[in-house]
């Protein structure tokens, strides 16, 4: 579950790359070929890929927390089983993605350290709480829907190991989407109280969903090189438009109200119009001041610390770190 946005930084200073190797590298990508771990690649490509895949991995493992909270309170045995399976999938996705990032040379331990210390980011939506059961339904449907749009695009990217991980992930996500939709439909077609619950959850989650694909293209960092290198596969606004196009009609079908009076599709341009999301709040939350940032990192830290004795009991310190092959 990862939506992109705000993940690329401007290079601190221009790195001079071997122009012959750079030309070969770009020609390969232009020809639709994948880059593999042992290939030559620009330093900036490696750096931005690590950042992106690492953020994606963190988003999966942190994203398991707001949903995991509801396993014991899920209504009915079948929904408990399904939610457990979904949460297990998300943790499995984190593992796949950490491995893909490791092929670029950053050990998993460093990534987890950077997550816990707040140096690395993850998808901002997981800094908000899942207040009721209906929140988990909205997350599983709409956040996962957004993630699939992003991940399907990224699976056509240029880096082999990341693409292979995403193929497996997208296959599993299709269940998440259906599961979430089923839960939302159940509530939205249920009693007035159930309808109220899901409407309130939608009200809470609409702003984070609009934030999910990252800042508007007008204000986001220049990504032309990353698009040419097939690291970033679509602009934030393009993905947001795609999401609105696919899901707003489905939400309206259920008689739910989207809490944005300006939201409409301009039938002439085919473009969705909406109230500009509050990007100051987005920046404030991603930089640590959201309702759940502190809790998420503290829980993750506890998990690493409480697992330490088990890992140590099994650890063989004679091993050298080696970069995974794929």
């Amino acid at each position, binding site marked *: 579950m990862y939506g992109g946005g705000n993940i690329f930084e401007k290079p601190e200073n221009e790195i001079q790359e071997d122009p012959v190797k750079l030309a070969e590298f770009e020609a390969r990508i232009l020809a639709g070929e994948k880059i593999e771990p042992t290939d030559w690649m620009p330093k900036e490509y490696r750096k931005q890929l690590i950042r992106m895949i690492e953020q994606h991995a963190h988003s999966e493992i942190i994203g398991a927390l707001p949903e995991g909270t509801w396993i014991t309170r899920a209504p009915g045995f079948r929904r408990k089983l399904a939610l457990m399976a979904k949460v297990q999938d998300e943790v499995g996705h984190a593992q796949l993605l950490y*491995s893909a990032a490791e092929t670029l040379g950053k050990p998993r331990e460093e990534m987890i350290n950077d997550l816990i210390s707040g140096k690395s980011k993850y998808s901002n939506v997981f800094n908000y709480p899942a207040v009721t059961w209906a929140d988990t339904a909205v997350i599983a449907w709409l956040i996962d829907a957004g993630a699939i749009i992003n991940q399907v695009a990224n699976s056509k990217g240029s880096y082999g190991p990341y693409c292979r991980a995403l193929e497996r992930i997208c*296959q599993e996500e299709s269940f998440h989407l259906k599961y979430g939709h089923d839960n939302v439909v159940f509530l939205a077609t249920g009693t007035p109280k159930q309808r109220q619950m899901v409407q309130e959850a939608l009200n809470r989650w609409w702003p984070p969903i609009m934030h999910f694909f990252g800042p508007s293209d007008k204000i986001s960092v220049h990504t032309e090189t990353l698009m040419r290198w097939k690291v970033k596969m679509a602009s934030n606004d393009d993905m947001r438009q795609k999401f609105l196009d696919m899901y707003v009609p489905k939400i309206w079908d259920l008689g739910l109200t989207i809490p944005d009076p300006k939201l409409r599709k301009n039938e002439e341009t085919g473009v969705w119009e909406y109230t500009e999301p509050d990007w100051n709040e987005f920046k404030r939350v991603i930089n640590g001041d959201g309702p759940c940032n502190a809790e998420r*990192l503290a829980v993750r830290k506890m998990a690493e610390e409480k697992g330490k004795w088990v*890992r140590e009991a099994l650890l*063989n310190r004679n091993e050298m770190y080696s970069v995974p092959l794929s």
Partner: protein
Amino acid sequence: MPIKSIDPRITRANIEIQNKETSKENKVLEKLDHWQTYEVFAQNKRGEHYSHVGSLHAPNPEMAWILAKEQFGRRNKITGIWITKTSDIFSVTENEEEMFELNSEKIYREAGGYKVMDRINKFKKENKKISEK
């Protein structure tokens, strides 16, 4: 101050919130705390070749096997798993591409490099002429 969460289990765990400034220096994990990596190969169906499905962290091959089964054999049924340490795989890392270049003019060792029907047809036509005389 311990965290007060909407998840009662987290509230009960009495977790202290990290100090934002000191936590920046906080290294929870040392190198290899998550053990070394293993490469996982799975067979999707009897008779098929084993194929690489990914890598994972494990303390030993046995645990790697168990984790691999959970990670790669949980959703779709597989029929076998091979585990090997990443460091036990030998590969070549530089200019690999060029090493695999084939001589393009090797059509003589492809089935498509041989056309015999022209010669056979010519032969049959000539034979027919002779027998008609």
